[in-house]
């Protein structure tokens, strides 16, 4: 589904990713762990196409398409979802309006018919229920006044509605209490654990991986993957720290 080959980039002239390679197949859940400053969020933003994250080398293939040649909205329409570590507040724009426009914009790019208002609300309600989020919150402006946990749950509701093929989730577990962590974890499983979908989890901690069991765990340090393994690698990291493992 996603093949990252020798990816390098720089932000404001500073090299962050230095030849990172990673392959994700349909049906797989990958976790990337690593110390602060290793380039984890940079990897997520670069795959999402954030302006200013200039690729200096390598390539990324997403289901046969050149991901790096696509604009952010085209990546979304192709099935990429980026879960933000710090979801952005958009005052004055309701979640419902934003998500309906976003979903229909994606559908239009894919040559599909737009979803009617009624059908959209039904879908939104279903996904909100899944994440135990009150529908009233979805009528409020995007992320405005939401707690850290509510923002992350709202991200998962967005993911459920947009129904991506690949989700890159950047520290979805940060800012979550134990209950919210479990709800988000269950949400990720319900939405994304399917043979035709894949997930790249970026996290500091084992705790999210207790709920969303990864097939592969990678250690990112110094801008590249320095070690890969199965779920046991995450436990080893938790016990011995990054320095011992990487």
């Amino acid at each position, binding site marked *: 589904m996603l093949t990252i080959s020798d990816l390098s980039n720089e932000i404001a002239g500073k090299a962050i990713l230095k030849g990172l390679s990673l392959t994700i197949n349909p049906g797989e859940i990958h976790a990337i762990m690593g110390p602060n400053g290793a380039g984890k969020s940079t990897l997520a933003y670069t795959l*999402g196409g954030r302006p200013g994250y200039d690729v200096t080398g390598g390539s990324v293939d997403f289901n046969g398409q050149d991901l790096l040649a696509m604009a952010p*909205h085209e990546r*979304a329409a192709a099935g990429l979802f980026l879960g933000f570590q710090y979801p952005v507040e*958009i005052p004055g724009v309701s979640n419902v309006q*934003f998500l309906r426009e*976003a*979903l229909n*914009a*994606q559908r239009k790019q894919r040559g599909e018919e737009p979803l009617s208002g009624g059908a959209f609300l039904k879908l939104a309600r279903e996904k909100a229920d899944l994440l135990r989020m009150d529908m009233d919150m979805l009528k409020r402006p995007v992320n405005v006044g939401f707690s850290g946990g509510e923002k992350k749950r709202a991200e998962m509701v967005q993911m459920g509605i947009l129904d991506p093929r690949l989700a890159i989730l950047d520290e979805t577990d940060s800012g979550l209490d134990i209950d919210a962590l479990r709800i988000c974890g269950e949400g990720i499983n319900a939405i994304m654990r399917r043979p035709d979908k894949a997930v790249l989890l970026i996290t500091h901690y084992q705790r999210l991986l207790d709920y969303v069991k990864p097939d592969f765990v990678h250690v990112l340090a110094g801008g590249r993957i320095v070690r890969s393994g199965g779920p046991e690698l995450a436990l080893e990291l938790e016990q011995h720290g990054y320095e011992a493992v990487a």
Partner: protein
Amino acid sequence: MTTAALLPTRADEAFRYADLAALATLWPLPTQTVRVATGQSESLSVVLAQQGPAARDLVIELEPGASFDLRLLNAGRAYGRIAVKVRLARGARFHLGAAQLAGGQQTAEIVTEVVHAEPDAVSSQVVRSVLAGHATGTYLGRVVVDRGAVGTDGEQSIRAMLLDRTATANARPELEIYADDVKCAHGCAVGELDAMGLFYLESRGLPPAEAKKLMLQAFIAQAFVDAPEEDVLTQAALQALGDLL
């Protein structure tokens, strides 16, 4: 000193940023006067969506306890000017919600003078400008609190969004206070659309123009919150916004 028949010059503060050539074609401006009787409430929406230059000159007299809700949309295709003079008597209330949109070489301006002539009157002004291309958008707003007008509450919230670095926003909220025990606040900001917000919306599938439009729509909507004709104004503003992008 000056008569209405004499075309103003740039030395006249209220016309400092005006498109004087366009103004000359409209001069002299007829003044529309509205008087609201004691204790009465009225509202008015003014929409400029014309092809050629247009200017409106309003005078609003509010008697004791009267209230007035004024909404302006300055979104024509050429020079657009709306000037409003308001006088508030004891306990009167005045609210202005205004949006102006301009692009190309256009000049758009809203000029207000709100006089709190007697105690305990309340005025609030919300002005939102969206400026593209080489457009100039101006808000000149003077709030005068006369001697003895204690208990005055005056507020101005002025914001402008520049879509291009070549556009210009002039925003000058001004306070002239001759009384004690008054509450007057003004806030003023000129900015650009939040880049992270745009990326967030785009990452969900909205093309850049749609993402911009959604954010600007929310920005403009602040001028029309709770307006009697909120839907009509919002629709007209959306139309103008679509033309601008």
